[in-house]
C-alpha cells in the first residue's frame, strides 16, 4: 500500500505542476459546455460530460506515456507492476475528481440548469472520470507513441459524438453511460436510463482497468531469459 501511495503521490505531483495543462483540462469541457449552452439543457450537459471524458483520457494518455521510460527502472527498484499502474490510476482519479468538482459547481449555479438533477450530474461525472482514466491508460498501453495515441483518442471521441445513442453500436462506446445518466438527470426520465448508465459505466471501468492491468503486467514482466539466483 505504501508503494502504491508513493507512486500515486509522485504522479499527482507531476501532473499538478503542469499548470498550463491543468487549465486546458478544465477549459476543454468548459468550451464544450459553452458552445452548447444556447441549445437545450440536455445538449450542454452531455457536451460537458464528453469534454470531461476527453480531457481525463488525454491526461491519462500523456501521463502514462511520460512514465513509460521510468517504469522499468522502478520495477528494478522493487515495485511490482500493479503498484505502478494502480498508483497512476489512483492519481488520475484524484485529478479527474478535482476537475469535475468545479464543473459540477458551474452546473449548480448556472440558471439555465435549474431543472437538472444535480445528484444525477454528479454521478455521471464520477463515471466519466472512472471510465476515462483507465481508457486513456489503455490507449497509451496499446499505442505507445503519443501522437498516434492522441489520434486514436480523437477518433473514438469523434465517433462517440456523432453516433446514434439509441443504436446498438453506441453501447460499445466507452462514454455511453454518461449520456444515459445525463438523459436521466436532465429529462427526469424513469430509472431505466440511470440503471443502464450505472451498469455500463461500472462494467467499462472494470473491463478497462483489467485490460490495463494485463497489458502493463505483460510489458513490465520479468523476461524469460533472466535467471535470478537470489532475492532481488
Amino acid at each position, binding site marked *: 500500500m505504501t508503494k502504491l501511495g508513493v507512486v500515486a503521490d509522485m504522479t499527482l505531483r507531476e501532473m499538478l505542476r503542469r499548470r498550463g495543462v491543468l487549465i486546458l483540462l478544465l477549459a476543454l469541457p468548459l468550451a464544450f459546455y459553452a458552445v452548447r449552452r444556447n441549445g437545450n439543457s440536455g445538449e450542454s450537459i452531455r457536451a460537458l460530460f464528453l469534454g470531461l471524458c476527453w480531457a481525463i483520457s488525454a491526461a491519462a494518455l500523456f501521463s502514462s506515456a511520460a512514465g513509460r521510460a521510468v517504469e522499468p527502472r522502478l520495477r528494478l527498484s522493487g515495485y511490482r507492476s500493479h503498484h505502478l499502474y494502480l498508483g497512476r490510476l489512483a492519481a488520475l482519479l484524484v485529478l479527474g475528481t478535482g476537475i469535475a468538482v468545479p464543473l459540477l459547481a458551474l452546473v449548480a449555479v448556472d440558471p439555465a440548469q435549474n431543472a437538472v438533477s444535480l445528484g444525477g450530474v454528479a454521478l455521471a461525472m464520477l463515471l466519466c472520470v472512472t471510465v476515462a482514466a483507465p481508457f486513456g491508460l489503455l490507449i497509451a498501453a496499446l499505442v505507445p507513441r503519443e501522437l498516434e495515441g492522441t489520434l486514436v483518442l480523437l477518433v473514438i471521441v469523434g465517433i462517440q459524438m456523432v453516433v446514434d445513442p439509441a443504436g446498438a453500436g453506441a453501447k460499445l462506446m466507452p462514454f455511453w453511460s454518461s449520456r444515459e445518466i445525463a438523459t436521466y438527470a436532465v429529462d427526469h426520465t424513469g430509472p431505466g436510463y440511470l440503471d443502464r448508465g450505472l451498469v455500463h459505466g461500472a462494467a467499462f471501468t472494470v473491463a478497462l482497468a483489467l485490460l490495463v492491468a494485463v497489458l502493463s503486467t505483460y510489458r513490465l514482466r520479468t523476461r*524469460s531469459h533472466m535467471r535470478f539466483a537470489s532475492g532481488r
Partner: protein
Amino acid sequence: MTISDGWLHDLGMELRRRGVPGGTADHVVAEAATHLRDSGEPPMAAFGPAAAYAAVVSDSVGDAWRRARRPVPGSVRLRARGITKRYRRREVLTGVDLTVYAGQVAAVVGANGCGKSTFLRICAGLISPDKGTVQVDGSIGYCPQDGGTIEFLRPEEHFVLVGGGRDWPRERSRAMGRAAAATLDWDPSTPELSRHLSGGTRQKLNLIMAGLGDPDVLLLDEPYQGFDRGTYVDFWQQVWRWRDNGRAVVVVTHMLTQFDLVDTVLDLSGADQGRRSQ
C-alpha cells in the same frame, strides 16, 4: 594566501578528488612546495595548472595505488551467455558472453550502433534477446543513457520514488540520495524540477537513482554524459567504491582510455564480438 599557497591547495584537492590517498597526496604537495620555495618559480611556470599536474601524478601514482587495493573477486554476480539480438534483419549482438564477479568492474565498449546499450538493457531484463540467458545473483541498479528521470519532479522526489520501491521511509530515501549526491559534489536539495537541471546534473541524478539501496549489480549506460572533468573523476571514484564494497559494476563506454580503470573489457566491435577481455 599567496599564489603558491592557492595553487598547492588546489593541487591537494585535485589529488584527493582523483583518489590519490591522503598520505601520498600530502607528500606530493610537500614536494611541490619545496620545489617552488627553492626555485622561486611561480607554480604555473614550474608545473602548469594544478589540475593538469594532479592528473599526471594521479596517472603515475594513483593507478598503482588503485591496482594494489583491488579486492579479490568474489562469486559470480552477472553471467550473460550467448546473447543474440536482431533488429529486423540486422543482427546487432551475436553470441555475446560476459561474466562479472563481485568486486569487479567491467567495461562494454564498441563503436556507435554496435549494440552496447541493447546488451545492457538485456542484462537488466528490460528487453528480451532472441537467444541467450542472463544469470543474476542479487539486485540490479540500472542507469540509462538518458531519459531515466521524470521532468516535473524535483531531485529529492526521485529519491523518494526509488526508495519507496525498497520500502524506505521518505526521509531515509532523501538522506541516502543526499549522501550519494555529496560523492558527486552535488547538493540535490533544490526546488528545481528535473527538466530544468543541466544535462550533466540530470545524469548525476540518474546515476544516484541507480545506486540507491546498494544493488549487487550496477549496470551503467554511459552515465557520465555531460559531466565536467571533476565530476567525471568523482564518477570513477564512486565506481571503485562500489567495486571495493563487493558490487559488480558494468559500464558502457566508448572512451577507450578507460581500459586501465576496469577489470574486464567486453568489446562489441567487429567479428570477434564478445570474445575479448583483459
